[in-house]
């Protein structure tokens, strides 16, 4: 059996899964200069809410096309409510302070959200297999692949394109780019930085929740599902470069392909390979492959 197509397809679908969460983290870091440790929890909440909407409103017909917009709706609700809430209440006070404070604040948020999820949704896993089954199997290069992961890939690509378009072809996007390169200067130029902060965080939250919502059909939605995602996302942005969405995309592809190759060739090294790559890139280019953020000069 030719493993190359398996590695390729597997790698790309894994990359797509990671992209949404990583893009969110790197985007938030670029604008707010905070590394959001709670981002995995936002991913998980997106999964829970998406699953909840599907189970509630698609009712009997879980294999219909209405499930997809319901998942999307879950992500949008998270982005519009939780995002601004967190940014206003928690993060706003932290911007001017030491990096430690931001890291610890989001770590505290992570602890809080993990339990909030348990309180709201309990500890039993939620299953929304409908959309997964709906897409059956796809045949490529003589191998049968599950169809649903391709949906995830399409969502990731669409999100990426949308993000790219917004950043480069709208006035909001230009303002965001300005804030990313120099917060103080942006303020001096008359840009409403607090408003940009709010929207950016909401957008990042939406992306994570989107990743979670569309992952729900792939796996069981249960407590702790966000805890491992976050470190994988850190690995991706470490490789791709903090603050760069294109970097996140490239980082995801590298991580996805490397992991897929490891799974086929050296299964024990599946996860090791990801973090080893992160270390290697950080040692070689500390700011990541496409990092735009200047290192503190020593």
């Amino acid at each position, binding site marked *: 059996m030719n493993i190359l197509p398996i590695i390729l397809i597997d790698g790309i679908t894994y990359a797509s899964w990671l992209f949404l969460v990583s893009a969110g983290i790197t985007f938030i870091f670029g604008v707010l200069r905070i590394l959001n440790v709670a981002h995995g929890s936002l991913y998980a909440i997106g999964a829970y809410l998406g699953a909840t909407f599907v189970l509630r409103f698609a009712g009997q017909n879980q294999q219909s096309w209405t499930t997809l917009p319901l998942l999307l709706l879950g992500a949008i609700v998270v982005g519009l409510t939780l995002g601004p809430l967190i940014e206003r209440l928690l993060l706003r006070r932290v911007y001017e302070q030491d990096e*430690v404070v931001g890291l610890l604040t989001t770590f505290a948020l992570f602890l809080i959200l993990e339990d909030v999820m348990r309180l709201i949704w309990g500890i039993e896993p939620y299953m929304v297999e409908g959309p997964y089954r709906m897409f059956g199997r796809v045949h490529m290069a003589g191998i049968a692949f599950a169809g649903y992961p391709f949906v995830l890939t399409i969502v990731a690509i669409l999100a990426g394109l949308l993000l790219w378009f917004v950043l480069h072809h709208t006035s909001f996007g230009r303002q965001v780019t300005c804030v990313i390169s120099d917060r103080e200067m942006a303020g001096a130029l008359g840009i409403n930085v607090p408003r940009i902060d709010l929207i950016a965080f909401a957008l990042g939250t939406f992306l994570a929740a989107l990743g979670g919502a569309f992952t729900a059909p792939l796996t069981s939605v249960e407590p702790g599902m966000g805890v491992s995602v976050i470190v994988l996302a850190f690995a991706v942005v470490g490789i791709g470069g903090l603050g760069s969405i294109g970097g996140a995309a490239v980082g995801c592809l590298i991580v996805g392909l490397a992991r897929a190759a490891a799974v086929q060739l050296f299964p024990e*090294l599946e996860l090791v390979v990801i973090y080893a790559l992160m270390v290697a890139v950080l040692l070689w280019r500390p700011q990541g492959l496409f990092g735009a953020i200047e290192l*503190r000069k020593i």
Partner: protein
Amino acid sequence: MNGATTHRSFLVGGMVAFALLALLPLFLSDWIVFLLALALAKGAVVLGVVLLLRGGLISFGHALYFAVGAYTVAFLANRFGVGEALVAVPLAMVISGLLAAALGLLLTRFRGIYFAMLSLALSMIAYTVLIKFYDFSGGTDGLSVRGFSLAGVTPVHSGLVKYYLVLVVTAGVTYIGARFLASPLGYLMQAVRYNEIRIEYLGASASHAILASYIISGAISGIGGALVAYLVGQVSPELAYWVASGDFVFVAVLGGTGSVFAPWIGSVVFELVKNYAVKFSPSTWQLTLGVFLLLVIYFQPQGLWGLLTRRRAKPR
């Protein structure tokens, strides 16, 4: 405050605390004694984190050394039949220290968020290795620590003996920590946070100071891990997980960075709060801790130590 009075008050404070802790088992249940021992052992790792925090460096990967120390004890007991703490704990310290020296050479080039991310990555490599290489590490099941002896004696009431072992080791680590914090190297580490250029222009090396601190930090974290391995009797890959590292940083901030005693105060408070939070409401203990951390960050950033010493501060 001149050096002599702080030295004296440290000794007095330390001896009082030591005496109190030595007497506590007479009044408290076995479970609380165990919790205290656990808190004290973990306190060594927290001190390790504090040493770096004082220089402005956040290590989000200290669980690595904690795990290395713990697994050293497990391997010695299970594979080599050596359950002797007087051999295992120093060995754990040496192995962690050597690892810290090797990794420190890589890490000391970084500051800020990059230092945090790289330290995180290194600890996650350890975690994933421990999970995947079952024959080596017992995989996700971990290993149970088969055997404990102190000076050749296998005690009947091992819980109590372990408590006193931890207490004595803690006293030792506190002493070393105190001397370090008061030394030129300890102050240079603080200076790193404020002005690295000035350090270079005094003819000293910021990277050397950071590396030395990192090695000591790794070594004492290994001691902490070794002690916990004996206390709990079980080691698992979770010891190296990123959340464990996050908890150590949490406790470091909770206790404060202002004194060598702060990490242990923070650690004891943390274990006690966690214990009662879990008992009281199993599905909200993390939430409680999270809110607690936020309160500390917003209202008392110097941590509990800052709270304790606030009234004694002289006006400037």
